[in-house]
């Protein structure tokens, strides 16, 4: 036998020599208390799950309106104020033939201007375009 064995046996025996052994009934009471706590905890958990199962679907069903699958449309009406005149607009160019007469040019201008989506129409000559570049 190892020296450590005998030393440990002495230690255990001496340390517990005066220990009071509780009555078995005290241990039984502790066990029953523990079981009651466990049962109460389990019952509370089951009750909470059942209550959640009953209440949550009803509350969800009471919510007004359809549930959108996407967020609301983004309002960009004032975005142009932040990003300049051309934000949200298109600049369309119409190239006329070399020898179009002024009457025909004016007729084209008027037809384009009549479209709802057009804000402004202006004519620019070839020379004016080169100068701007």
């Amino acid at each position, binding site marked *: 036998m*190892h020296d*450590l064995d005998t030393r440990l046996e002495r*230690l255990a025996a*001496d340390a517990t020599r005066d220990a009071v052994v509780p009555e078995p009934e005290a*241990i039984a009471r*502790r066990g029953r208390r523990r079981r009651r706590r466990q049962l109460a905890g389990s019952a509370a958990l089951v009750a909470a799950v059942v209550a959640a199962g009953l209440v949550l679907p009803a509350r969800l069903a009471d919510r007004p309106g359809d549930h959108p699958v996407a967020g609301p449309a983004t309002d960009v009406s004032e975005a142009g104020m932040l990003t300049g005149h051309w934000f949200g607009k298109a600049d369309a160019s119409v190239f006329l033939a070399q020898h179009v007469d002024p009457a025909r040019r004016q007729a084209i201008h008027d037809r384009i201007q009549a479209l709802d989506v057009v804000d402004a129409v202006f004519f620019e000559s070839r020379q004016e375009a080169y100068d701007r570049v």
Partner: protein
Amino acid sequence: MADDGFASFYASSYRRLLGQLFAVTGDLAEAENVLQEAYARAFVRWPRVGGYDLPEAWVRRVAINLAAMADRSLRRRARALLRLGPPPLVPELSPDLIDLRDALAALPLGQRQVIVLHHLVGLPVEEVASELRLATGTVKSRLARGRAAMASTLQLDWSEVT
């Protein structure tokens, strides 16, 4: 309480297990607390636990596990203090046993467990491994390191013993 064998099992094993748990915890009040909790659990499962070959091993394993958890839980320690009162001083230990207790208490819990199970309970290494759900090599390693640390503290030579 119906006498279905629990009372006699309890009376015959309590003090022995208390000594083993004291060696693991280094604290008599803590040992009493975890051991009584383990017996309480055995009581409510006694129809099953009482049928085991070694109900005492079941109680010891539960108590050792509880002691390991209590080692990490200051709250449980505080509750034990409230329930059981301040831990009594270990009565009349000889100086060499006080040194042994202190050397054991200085070990990490894992080393303490294997040393107690192997050297005090008398379990072979394989059974210690099974009881603590460790690999055999881990148990051997912990035994060696634990013994070396204790031998160094106590200035003894236990290095040759397995």
